[in-house]
């Protein structure tokens, strides 16, 4: 447990110092403020404003940031990990757990820091059309998508040795999955479909079953990714 906490602290401090973080937060905050002003002045619908922000700003930027932060979590630090960390009294399980908690936790903290005040301001100043239940589910789904992306990035970082290739593979996989799923008649499982459905979800118009199956599938995929990360990293030579 001490090793887990030590690595968690170390990794979190590395993330805070990262150039990705320095770019990510301002790039999310500035358009959010702009949208709040526009929505208040133009009396835009809160659900449409929130959904547009999530689909056009938050998800693309966050996907890129999360991809870089997670796909390089292990691949980019293999030597440091072996020399400085895992040659000491740390188990692989402790190490991977700390990495997962730090990286995914960091992504979710950034998401919360941006989305909670932004949602509050939009709901307060734009034309109110939101259902609070729908709003919570929509935000939860968006957070789940980011978590899944992060988990997949961590899996790739244990499998691959090149950070850039890991990031590219992750982004291409996410983008290409939409086409494949559409071809297979499973469009509802694609990230694009989930994002286009956000506005009705915020208004509370999406059937509960549709929401459940999306949450179930992405939670399941996240769990599978995390288990794969553990199993691959435990067996890997450093």
């Amino acid at each position, binding site marked *: 447990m001490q090793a887990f906490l030590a690595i968690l602290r170390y990794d979190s401090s590395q993330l805070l110092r990262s150039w990705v973080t320095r770019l990510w937060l301002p790039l999310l905050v500035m358009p959010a403020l702009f949208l709040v002003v526009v929505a208040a002045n133009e009396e835009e619908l809160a659900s449409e404003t929130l959904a547009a922000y999530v689909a056009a700003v938050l998800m693309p930027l966050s996907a890129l940031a999360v991809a870089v932060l997670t796909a390089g979590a292990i691949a980019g630090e293999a*030597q440091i990990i072996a020399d*400085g960390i895992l*040659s*000491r*009294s*740390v*188990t692989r399980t402790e190490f991977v757990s700390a990495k997962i908690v730090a990286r995914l936790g960091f992504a979710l903290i950034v998401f919360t820091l941006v989305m909670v005040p932004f949602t509050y301001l939009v709901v307060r100043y734009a034309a109110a059309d939101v259902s609070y239940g729908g709003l919570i589910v929509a935000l939860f789904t968006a957070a789940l998508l980011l978590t899944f992306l992060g988990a997949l990035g961590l899996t790739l970082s244990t499998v691959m040795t090149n950070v850039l290739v890991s990031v590219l593979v992750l982004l291409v996989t996410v983008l290409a999955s939409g086409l494949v799923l559409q071809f297979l008649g499973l469009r509802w499982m694609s990230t694009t479909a989930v994002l286009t459905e956000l506005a009705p979800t915020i208004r509370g118009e999406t059937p509960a079953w549709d929401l459940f199956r999306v949450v179930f599938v992405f939670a399941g995929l996240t769990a599978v990714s995390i288990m794969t990360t553990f199993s691959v990293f435990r067996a890997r*030579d*450093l």
Partner: protein
Amino acid sequence: MHVVNTHDLTKIYDNRYIALNALNMRVEKGQVYGLVGPNGAGKSTTFRILLGLQKPTAGSIQVFGEAMGAERADLRRRIGYLPTNPTFPKSMTPIAFLQFVGSVLGMPRDRAKIQLSRLLQAVDLTNAASQPMKGFSTGMLTRLGIAAALMNDPELLILDEPTSGLDPAGRKQTIELIRELSGRDRTIIIATHILTDVERVCTDVGIISAGRLIYSGPMADMRRLARQGTIAVEIEGNTSAFEQEITTLDEFGSVRYERLGSEFRITFLGTRSLTDYLQRVLQLIDRTGVELLHIDTGSDEIEEAFLRRLEDDRTRGFLRAAAWAAALDGGVDGPGSSGSGANGGTNGNTTARTGENADAGIPGHPSV
């Protein structure tokens, strides 16, 4: 008790490269064991498996009497490790890094601070203690690595090329530090290709070549091995008379020599003692009336012995493979098994731990 015990340890990377080839190595408590070998011999791979960073393809490894693996943090807690050319987080300062190591090891914060201050002073990094590591030289990183390896006052200290990248002063300081650390029931394993380092600090030595331990024994035996048989003399006067009679110094075929100007390097392959051979050489000098300028029975001795071992191992590779196959066909223990008798120390796969088999591997006493 063996602190480290490997049995037929084998590591093959991607079915393409054999890094370790049935390595049998035993290190006992309190030893300062020098693992010597050329680059790519398998020293670092041995250490990585020993720490659970890599899995062996075949064979087994025990540390403190227990099987080592990736999840054995309890065993690693008792080990300090310095990797070769260590890579540490560049944005961290030595103080922050050692604090991190202390917290990973579960040390109380106060104790960790006392320990890190002491260690930074010991490795002469006090002045750089608050600077980020990105500007550090290889030598500074190595010294910091030594400090990190000592944070938990380990029972087993593994140093992979501890003097690599150090200037002469740093090297001397590191050797002194290792000397200080030896004893007190601490076991130290040092991998290096700098033989003088091994000679200065190690109580025992193992020679690794192409993933196999081709010699293992006390340092004193290695020195004896090195001294055995070679006498260098520098003479002037009637050197051709001296040269003509060199081969009469021992039985036919038991004396080899090479001449470099006025210097003769005479190698005796017989079983007599060095003192006896020395006496014969001095008598020959007297008899032929040459003037002795210099005589040496041990210059570059360890290096010489080391190179002879490697050469010996290379030339006997085929015979060893044949012996191994024959042993397998006959359903008896192969050369890798303990107690393989006459095959003893020169048999590539056999570990001649302590002196018992070491004599079997003396150059000039072919055992295969």
